[in-house]
């Protein structure tokens, strides 16, 4: 098999790791299944791409994207906490709204970045090839955010955020405005996701209105792959597992494509992975029950 394909998959995995960290933050830490992600990744891509096309420096454009993402998270958080809309519905509302907003920002469904300056070129100026620059930058960004999140989740505020997802009643009785905590968490998560969108758009050379479809499921699949490999209760291990999960997920996808599946088949493939992971506890307990019954039968015979 072709090594460059795998190199590309690793880079993509590192870039998407930002989104996966965001998903991990909401799903696992805040215990809030946030579907805003599908919209905010496109939002980040749309904001960065249109800024770059209008002549803004790509570094600046990349940094504006997470601000837009944070705003999207704020909307979902406010819908949920202030108006008691269930998490799933609040996320879907923002996501659907973002579809129209993203189209407005881009002006059309697909915005190519051909012959436009992108952030990876700044690294390439050091003399590295474009491919290696993409790898180095995506690796550095992933490591940077592992570190930032590790630090944040161990601060007083970060611990309060984790505890909010664990035991909201207790945190309110300890004086924490848990509504605000959730809004902050959703803001951070979607900022990460939008930053991911901005980088992915520059990596692949375009922003596309449909690039967010099913991203949440890919994110969950990556989180699950990481957990299976490195399950631990230590935050730092978790964060690394999540990034590793993202890379492995992209590698698995690359292999599946090599096996002759069409890119359009991938969504079904991912949905199946996540489904299996979600129902595996049920399967496990069912198998155990079967085994027990079998043992009892044998005992009766004996």
């Amino acid at each position, binding site marked *: 098999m072709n090594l460059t394909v795998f190199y590309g998959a690793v880079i993509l995995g590192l870039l998407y790791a930002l989104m996966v960290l965001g998903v991990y933050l909401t799903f696992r830490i805040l215990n809030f299944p946030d579907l805003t992600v599908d919209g905010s990744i496109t939002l980040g891509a749309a904001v960065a791409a249109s800024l770059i096309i209008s002549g803004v420096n790509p570094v600046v454009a990349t940094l504006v994207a997470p601000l837009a993402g944070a705003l999207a998270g704020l909307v979902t958080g406010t819908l949920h906490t202030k108006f008691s809309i269930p998490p799933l519905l609040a996320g879907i509302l923002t996501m659907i709204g973002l579809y129209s907003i993203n189209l407005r920002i881009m002006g059309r469904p697909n915005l190519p970045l051909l012959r436009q300056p992108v952030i990876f070129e700044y690294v390439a100026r050091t003399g590295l090839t474009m491919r290696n620059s993409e790898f180095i930058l995506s690796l550095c960004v992933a490591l940077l955010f592992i570190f930032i999140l590790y*630090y*944040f989740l*161990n*601060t*007083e*505020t*970060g*611990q*309060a955020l*984790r*505890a909010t997802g*664990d*035991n909201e*009643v*207790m*945190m*309110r*009785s*300890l*004086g*924490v*405005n*848990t509504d605000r905590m959730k809004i902050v968490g959703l803001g951070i998560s979607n900022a990460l996701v939008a930053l991911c969108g901005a980088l992915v758009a520059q990596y692949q050379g375009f922003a596309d209105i449909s690039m967010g479809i099913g991203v949440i499921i890919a994110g969950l699949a990556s989180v699950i792959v990481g957990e299976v490999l490195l399950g631990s*209760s230590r935050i730092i291990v978790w964060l690394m597992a999540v990034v590793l999960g993202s890379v492995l997920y992209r590698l698995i996808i690359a292999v599946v494509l090599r096996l002759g599946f069409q890119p359009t088949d991938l969504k079904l493939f991912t949905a199946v992975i996540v489904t299996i992971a979600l129902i595996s506890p049920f399967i496990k307990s069912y198998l155990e029950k079967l085994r027990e019954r079998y043992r009892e039968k044998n005992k009766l015979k004996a």
Partner: protein
Amino acid sequence: MLEVLEVTKIFNQGSVNEKLALNNVSLKVPPGDFIAIIGGNGAGKSTLLNCVAGVYPVERGRIFLNGEDVTGLPDHRRARDIARIFQDPMMGTAASMTVEENLALALKRGAKRTLRWSLNETRRRLFREKLAMLKLGLEDRLGTPVKLLSGGQRQAMTLLMTTLIQPRLVLLDEHTASLDPKTALKVLELTRRLVEENNITSLMVTHNMEQALRVGNRTIMMHEGKIILDLQGEQRENMTVPGLIEMFHKVSGEKMQTDRILLT
């Protein structure tokens, strides 16, 4: 210290499920009082505590804490003065977080939480010292996730977390009810020690009549959203459990489900 003034709490107002849970309740609690609250199922004991804590808004009446009107404040804004312990030992701690992380969370009760690293050696030393007082060996398990501890250990930890930052008022809602009898007794002893040593004002819901007369300095009985009995001083000292049941019959005009209250 605490004054509940003509408070009425109605759940699901205007629907078929409308429930008058607190009916014009007034209660004055001077500093240092340790009040035991008893009453049948659905009498409104938990609702009273929840209204004092600010979990539910009240339909009518006012609540004062240290002379300040806190009626409109949400629960998290009353947390600096009020600490709570729940019946379910799982409710008082964050299961997925470690012993030291939980204590660090409690160390900031009602205070601003910063962006500084939360755990350091000074704090760990303090936690070890405080945990040692529980005599449960937890001082050597700072890094253990709380979900690995027993119900009794968790409830003892919750008590410790409550007193880490001295509250003015502690609300205990049947906090020994889901523990086995031996552990329950231990946790109750610990409660007495922490509350009495620090002279914290407390409201403790219990369904153990014996306990209600023995622990603390005042006993309140609730029935159908009202306080129907308030015993203190000599009157309380001379009261017996059968006497208390007798009183209940007289005041409520109903027969009490004595088996549940006596046996547990």
